[in-house]
């Protein structure tokens, strides 16, 4: 049997094709967010800096916070606060982290750092 396509059939097929391709492109774009590891630094509840954790290079960020200078170091996909001024130095004593579930929180300096990957993890949240 020979398949006969009229003009409407062709337009219809092309329409389906265009919609399919558009949806696939949108889905792929969403996928590409996954695996993009970054550490976001917030001061006074404003996002002020982003570390790219995908490369393993050492990098530093310094910022003047509530109690003075805070120095943050990133290396090998991890992040830590190396210098800050507070009574018990809770956030610099916390050391390295690469977990989305354990933000670094420097309450006296009104600063915190969260790691974001865009990936869903087995554990959604940790209670401590």
């Amino acid at each position, binding site marked *: 049997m020979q398949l006969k396509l009229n003009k409407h059939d062709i337009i219809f097929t092309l329409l389906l094709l265009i919609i399919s391709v558009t949806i696939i492109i949108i889905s792929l774009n969403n996928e590409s967010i996954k695996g993009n590891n970054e550490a976001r630094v917030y001061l006074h509840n404003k996002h002020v800096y982003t570390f790219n954790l995908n490369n393993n290079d050492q990098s530093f960020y310094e910022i003047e916070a509530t109690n003075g200078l805070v120095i943050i170091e990133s290396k090998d996909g991890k992040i830590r606060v190396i210098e800050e001024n507070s009574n018990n130095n809770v956030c610099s004593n916390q050391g390295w982290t690469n977990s989305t579930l354990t*933000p670094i929180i420097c309450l006296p300096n009104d600063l915190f750092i969260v790691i974001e990957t865009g990936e869903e993890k087995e554990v*959604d949240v940790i*209670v*401590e």
Partner: protein
Amino acid sequence: MKQKFAILFIFLVTFSGCNRVEKKYSEKFLSFDSYIELVVYTNDEKQFTELYNITKDGFDYYHKLFDAFNLYDGINNVKIINDNAGIKPVKVEPVLFNLIVESIELYDKGYTNTNIAFGPITSEYNKLFDENLSETKQQLPDLDLLIELNKCTNINDIVLDYDDSSIYLKNKCNKLDLGGVAKGYATDLIISDLKKSGFENGILIAGQSNIYTIGAKPDGSLFNVGISNPVNQELLATLSISDKHIIASSGEQRYIMIDNERIHHLIDPNTLRPANINQGVTLVTDSGFIGDFLSTHLFMLEKDEFKKITEELSLDYILIDNNGEIIISDGISDAIKVK
């Protein structure tokens, strides 16, 4: 032609179904001396913004109201009540009045390790956590001083005027400390507002010891809450749960080391020293306030008394005793996976 429309219709319905998968939105901020994070699964970005604003404004406001250390314009807060101890009653917002009333009611039921009149003692310990003391100066508050101050921790010294919704502390040395109850209470109020605005699937982290989950993830699975070991922060267990508060009390949340001894913020009213019976208690409750209040009380109890109360109140819990043994209540044993 009709056939083509039918095909196109089925095609579009199928794909629009794919796009209806809820997106994950989250925002975080510091408030209430805590890290707060709201996670919402929704299709509607505007709805998320509304829910976030409720959360941010709510915690900022309740923090001011329950704050015992700072004054704010136009707000009669806990600091004002304390500053007027032995002087005059202070008229307060119904929310603050009710929190004080409900805390006294639970205390009067016998849960006396959480005492909102314990301020004179906790403020001595708070000096260790808050003041900039060099290590050589860091030492435990003198026990004789604490025994003297403990005369000012009688909860009956809080005088309630229901007609006027005012609070009066009888003696100048009285001091309220709502640290063990305020965040749970605020969380309940905020969650009630969030639900009214359509909060159906997500997580509210109100400080890392105070978690609330609602609904499920887009794939239908429940949220997994990791329970960490209070001593080394390793993951002990995972709890799959919804529409519950998960609230932890442990000696690891706020502490300093003095002579290799961990001095934490949960002070036993019987010894006036940091409680050292358990490593951590996590409660799974319907109310943030009840969870906050009772997790502090239960943290200071020996196992027999702990079990008696949790059975009486049908409370679900994860108890980590001082030997590191994990005890899980029957009610959540199916929902928990121990590592």
